């Protein structure tokens, strides 16, 4: 079966996130005064052929650990849609 899977890769807590910080700095000048704590990460959508949703999830989790994210700076979450 074919599963649609979504992976979110976001910077780990305690690791600075320059991309989020840059957006945050620009917000007030554009009239957005009530927003903060911006963090930017990646979302990766893919399709996996697997026996079951669980096995699709396991495959993608393995992919995350070995490839899609760098545990030194990032956390990844996997969601089968």
């Amino acid at each position, binding site marked *: 079966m074919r599963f649609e899977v979504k992976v979110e890769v976001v*910077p780990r807590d305690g*690791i*600075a996130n*320059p*991309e989020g*910080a*840059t957006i945050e700095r620009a917000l007030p000048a554009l009239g957005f005064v009530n927003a903060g704590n911006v963090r930017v990460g990646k979302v990766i959508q893919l399709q996996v052929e697997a026996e079951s949703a669980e096995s699709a999830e396991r495959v993608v989790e393995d992919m995350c650990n070995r*490839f*899609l994210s*760098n545990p*030194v*700076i990032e956390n990844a979450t996997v969601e089968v849609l």
Partner: protein
Amino acid sequence: MSKVIGVVRFPGTNCEFDTIDALQILGAETKILWHGDRDIANVDSVIIPGGFAHGDYLRCGAIARFSPVMDAVKSFAKDGGPVLGICNGFQVLTEAGLLPGALQKNVGMKFLCSMQTLEFVSTSNILGANALQGDSLRIPINHFEGNYVCEERVLKELEERNQIVFRYAENPNGSIADIAGISNLEGNVVGMMPHPERATSPLLGSTDGIALLNSLVGGSAAQSV
């Protein structure tokens, strides 16, 4: 006999020929190591040059680290062989686990190409043969992801074990502890963001890269630790 230096080429690498030009002027023999090759026999040291291996997609070095040549580079390094990663090469070395930490986007969220002043912090590594601790070098940087990060504990280790090779005089990218380059514990693997090959001719504005490359080319025993 002149040293043979292997220069790794991934699709997307772009500083390989600059590095080779600079090395050849210093009298080295050079050899391109194609990313698909598993065999890197007969080289005295390895340079992973700058560029955008595999487009730097996903993360810099994330795809490159799986190239067949990297298996060979890893065992070469494990046996004490000198390995230098410049810029993208540094990123590949951290992804491959040959050096600790990671390189993330510059704090200013802009690519930066500019001349920098570096302090040579530790010379007990493969680049130190012709230098003194504390030397000041002018070498350009050229990167978007040069902002070195690591855990507190790792930073302490790097400092205590003399593994910080270069620091920026004026931090351009937000790197932790102004780090511009580090080595592994043994000193035979070094990664640096600045480009020594771009500082090898008076016409280009600096010759401070020569001493660094020379310690690979003519360098006495590579492990000068």
